[in-house]
C-alpha cells in the first residue's frame, strides 16, 4: 500500500505491465463470479474444440484415400479415442455449462449462482480432468514403456480396458480424467438446479421462467442420474485396474456386457444433456429473430421434461448387436421411437414461432434455421437406427457415425454458433461481424453437408467405424474423399469464426445493453454486465419482462 509511492519512476513503468498481467491472472484464477467462470468454461472448451477438431482432420486425412499410411494404426486408435472423449467431456459439457453459468443467473434476475465457490471448484476440477487426459501423451508410458494416449475408444469396452490389453497407464489417465470431469459436472448441475429453484427474482415463477432456464433445469437434473452411473462405473474400472477386483474381468466370471449397460445408461442420456441446451438456445434465439413470443410455452416445457424422462429408458439401443433378446429389443425400439414425439413437438413449435413472424436473417438466426433443418434429418436417421433389425445391419458402421455427427455437429454445434453470435455482444460488449458471420455460416454449411451427408453412404456400403484404412476395391474411396474434403471447409469456417471473435473483441462496434431488442432480463444489464449483475433486483410480471418495460401500454402480463 505504502510501497506504491516509493519505487523510482523508471522501475514502476517497467513493473506495472507485469503486475497488471499477474493481477488479471490472479483475478481470473480466484474468481467466483458466475460470468467469469462461464467465460472460463467457454474459453477452455473452445481450446479443446480446436484440439479435437485437429484430431478429426488428421483422421480424415488418413481415411481420404485407401491404403494410406499417414498415421499408424496405433495413432489412429488414439486419435478417435481422444477425439470422442474430448468432444463429449471437455468440449460439449464445459461449453454448455459455460453458457448456463453465464446466462441462468442473469435470466432469472439473480446476482450470482447459489454456491459460487462450488462453482469455481467444479470448473477447476473439470479443467484438471482435461489437462490430465492430455498429459497422458507424455506421462502414460509407465514402466513397461507401453502406452501413450488412451486408445480404447470413447466407450472403452471391457475387457479391452483390462491390464492385459491396456498395459501402461493410458487407460488410467482416461478413467481418472472422466471421473474428475464427472465430479465437476455434478457440482455444476447441482449449482444450476439450486440457483434456478432458490435464487429467482420476485415474480419469476416457474411458469414465467425463460425456456432456456427450464431446459437447463432439466439438463442438470439429468446429470445427476446420468453422470453418476458413469462415475460409479469408473470407480469399478479403477478398482479392477488398481486393486485387482473382477467387475469386468471375464476370466473370473465378470461381465463385459455389464460395462456396456453401465456406460450406455450414461451414454444415451448424455446425448440429451448435450442437445437440451442447444434446444434452450433455440428457444431464446428463434422468437427474438422472428419478432414473436415463443409458440406453445407450456408444451415446450412439458416436452423438455418428457424428453428428460424418456431419455433414461433408451440406452440399450446402443446394444442391439449384443443380442438382448426379443423382449428387450422391442422395448428399447419402442422407447427410442417414443422419444421422437416430444422432440417433434419442439420442432413444430419452433416452426410455428417462425410462421408469420418478421424474420431477421442475422448470422445467429441463419445458424438456428440450419439447426432446425439438420436436427430433423438427424432425428429421422435416428428413428431408422432405432429399428433393431436395421441396426443389426448398420450398427458400428459409418452410417451410425454420420447419424450422431449430424446430431452433434448439425444440431448442437450449429446452435452453439448461433448462441455465440447472439450472446457474444452481451459477454464482450462488442458485436461480432455479421459479414464474417454469414461467410462462416455458408462455408461451414457447405462443409457440414459435404462431410456428413456423404458419410452415410460408405456406411450403407458396409464401411465399419474405427478402421484406420481400407482396400481400394471396396468402392468407398470416392465417398471418403468427399467426406474429407468437407472437413477442410468446416475447418476454414471455424477459423473464420475464431478470427471473427478476436477481431470483434478489439474492433467490433459497441453493442450497448440490448442490440437485438430482446425480451429476457440479461438484456436489461449493461454489456458486459457488472459483477453484481443488477444494481436493483428486478421484479417481473410476465415471461417477457423487457417487453413489458418497452411496451407499458400493452404488457404481456395482460395475456398470460
Amino acid at each position, binding site marked *: 500500500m505504502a510501497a506504491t509511492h516509493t519505487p523510482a519512476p523508471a522501475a514502476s513503468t517497467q513493473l506495472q505491465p507485469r503486475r497488471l498481467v499477474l493481477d488479471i491472472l490472479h483475478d481470473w484464477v480466484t474468481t467466483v463470479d458466475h460470468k467469469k467462470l462461464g467465460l472460463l468454461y467457454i474459453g477452455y472448451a473452445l481450446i479443446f474444440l480446436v484440439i479435437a477438431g485437429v484430431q478429426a482432420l488428421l483422421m480424415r486425412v488418413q481415411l481420404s484415400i485407401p491404403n494410406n499410411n499417414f498415421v499408424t494404426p496405433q495413432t489412429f486408435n488414439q486419435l478417435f479415442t481422444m477425439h470422442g472423449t474430448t468432444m463429449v467431456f471437455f468440449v460439449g459439457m464445459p461449453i454448455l455449462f459455460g453458457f448456463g453459468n453465464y446466462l441462468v443467473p442473469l435470466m432469472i434476475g439473480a446476482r450470482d449462482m*447459489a*454456491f459460487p465457490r462450488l462453482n469455481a471448484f467444479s470448473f477447476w476440477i473439470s479443467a484438471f480432468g482435461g489437462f490430465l487426459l492430455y498429459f497422458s501423451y507424455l506421462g502414460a508410458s509407465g514402466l513397461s514403456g507401453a502406452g501413450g494416449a488412451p486408445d480404447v475408444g470413447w466407450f472403452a469396452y471391457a475387457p479391452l480396458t483390462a491390464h492385459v490389453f491396456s498395459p501402461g497407464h493410458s487407460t488410467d489417465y482416461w478413467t481418472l480424467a472422466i471421473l474428475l470431469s464427472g465430479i465437476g459436472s*455434478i457440482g455444476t*448441475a*447441482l*449449482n444450476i*438446479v*439450486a*440457483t434456478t*429453484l*432458490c*435464487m*429467482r427474482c*420476485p*415474480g419469476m415463477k416457474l411458469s414465467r421462467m425463460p425456456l432456456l432456464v427450464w431446459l437447463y433445469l432439466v439438463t442438470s*437434473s439429468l*446429470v*445427476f*442420474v*446420468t*453422470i*453418476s*452411473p458413469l*462415475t*460409479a*462405473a469408473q*470407480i*469399478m474400472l479403477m*478398482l479392477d485396474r488398481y*486393486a*485387482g*477386483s*473382477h*467387475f469386468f474381468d471375464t476370466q*473370473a*466370471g*465378470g*461381465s463385459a456386457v*455389464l460395462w456396456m449397460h*453401465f456406460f450406455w*445408461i450414461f451414454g444415451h442420456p448424455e446425448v440429451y444433456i448435450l442437445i437440451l441446451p442447444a434446444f434452450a438456445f433455440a428457444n431464446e434465439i428463434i422468437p427474438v429473430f422472428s419478432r414473436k413470443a415463443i409458440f406453445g410455452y407450456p408444451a415446450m416445457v412439458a416436452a423438455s421434461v418428457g424428453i428428460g424422462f424418456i431419455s433414461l429408458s433408451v440406452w440399450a439401443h446402443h446394444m442391439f448387436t449384443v443380442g438382448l433378446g426379443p423382449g428387450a429389443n422391442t422395448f428399447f425400439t419402442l422407447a427410442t421411437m417414443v422419444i421422437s414425439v416430444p422432440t417433434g413437438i419442439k420442432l413444430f413449435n419452433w416452426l410455428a414461432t417462425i410462421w408469420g413472424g418478421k424474420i431477421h436473417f442475422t448470422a445467429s438466426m441463419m445458424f438456428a434455421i440450419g439447426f432446425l433443418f439438420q436436427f430433423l434429418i438427424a432425428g429421422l436417421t435416428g428413428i431408422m437406427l432405432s429399428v433393431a433389425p436395421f441396426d443389426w445391419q448398420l450398427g458400428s458402421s459409418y452410417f451410425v457415425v454420420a447419424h450422431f455427427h449430424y446430431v452433434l455437429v448439425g444440431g448442437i454445434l450449429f446452435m452453439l454458433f448461433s448462441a455465440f453470435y447472439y450472446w457474444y455482444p452481451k459477454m464482450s460488449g462488442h458485436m461480432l461481424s455479421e459479414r464474417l458471420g454469414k461467410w462462416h455460416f455458408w462455408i461451414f454449411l457447405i462443409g457440414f453437408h459435404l462431410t456428413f451427408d456423404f458419410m452415410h453412404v460408405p456406411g450403407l456400403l458396409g464401411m465399419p467405424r474405427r478402421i484406420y484404412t481400407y482396400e481400394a476395391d471396396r468402392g468407398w474411396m470416392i465417398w471418403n474423399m468427399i467426406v474429407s474434403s468437407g472437413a477442410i471447409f468446416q475447418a476454414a469456417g471455424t477459423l473464420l469464426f475464431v478470427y471473427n471473435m478476436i477481431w470483434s473483441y478489439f474492433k467490433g462496434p459497441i453493442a450497448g445493453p440490448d442490440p437485438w431488442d430482446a425480451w429476457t432480463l440479461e438484456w436489461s444489464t449493461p454489456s458486459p454486465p457488472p459483477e453484481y449483475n443488477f444494481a436493483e433486483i428486478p421484479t417481473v410480471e410476465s415471461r417477457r419482462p423487457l417487453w413489458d418495460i418497452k411496451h407499458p401500454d400493452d404488457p404481456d402480463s395482460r395475456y398470460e
Partner: protein
Amino acid sequence: MSQAAVIPQTTPWVLPSRGVVGMACLIVAESAIFTIFVVAYLYYLGKDLTGPTPSQVLDLPIFTSICLLSSSLSIHLAVSALHHAKRDLCSLWLAVTVLLGSIFLGGTALEWHKLIVHDGLTLQTNLFGTTFYSLVGLHATHVLVGLIMLTLALLFSLNGSMTAKHIGRLEVLSLYWHFVDAVWVVVFTVVYVLGR
C-alpha cells in the same frame, strides 16, 4: 390505503432453501451411484467361480444396524434441540449420534477383519468379494464422511459457536445422515437378507 386494497398484494416472495435443494440434488446423484453398485451386486450374485459365498461367511449385523438407524433419531433430536435453543441438549444428541455411528463403523471393521483373516475373502477373491467390499465400503465411506462432519458439529456445539443461525446448516447435515441411514436399509436388505 384504499388503493393498496385494490391492487392485489402478492404474497411475500418465498423460495426454498438452497442448502436443502443442494443436498437433495447431491442425494439424488449419490443414489444413482449406489444404485449402480447394488445392480452390480445383484447381477453377480451366485455367479462366483470359487468360494466363499455369502451364505457361508456373512452374519446379520443386527446390533450395529440398530445403532446406525437409531442415530437418525438422535440427529433429529439434536436439530430440534437447537430449534428450541437448548444447546447442551443439542451437544448431547450430537455426541450420541457420533457414538452410534462409530459403533456401526467399528462393527464393519470387525466384520471385515473376520472376513479377511478367518474366511480369506478379499476384494480379489471372487465376484462376491469384489461387489461386497465395494458396495459396503462405499457406504462405510459415506458413514465416515458423515462422522467427520458430525464430529465437527459436535465440537462447534461444545465450544458454543453453534447458534440459532446455524440451524439451516445442521439440518442439511442431518439430511445427509438420514440418507446414509436409508442407504444402509437398502444395502442390508440386498446384501444380508436377499443375498444370503
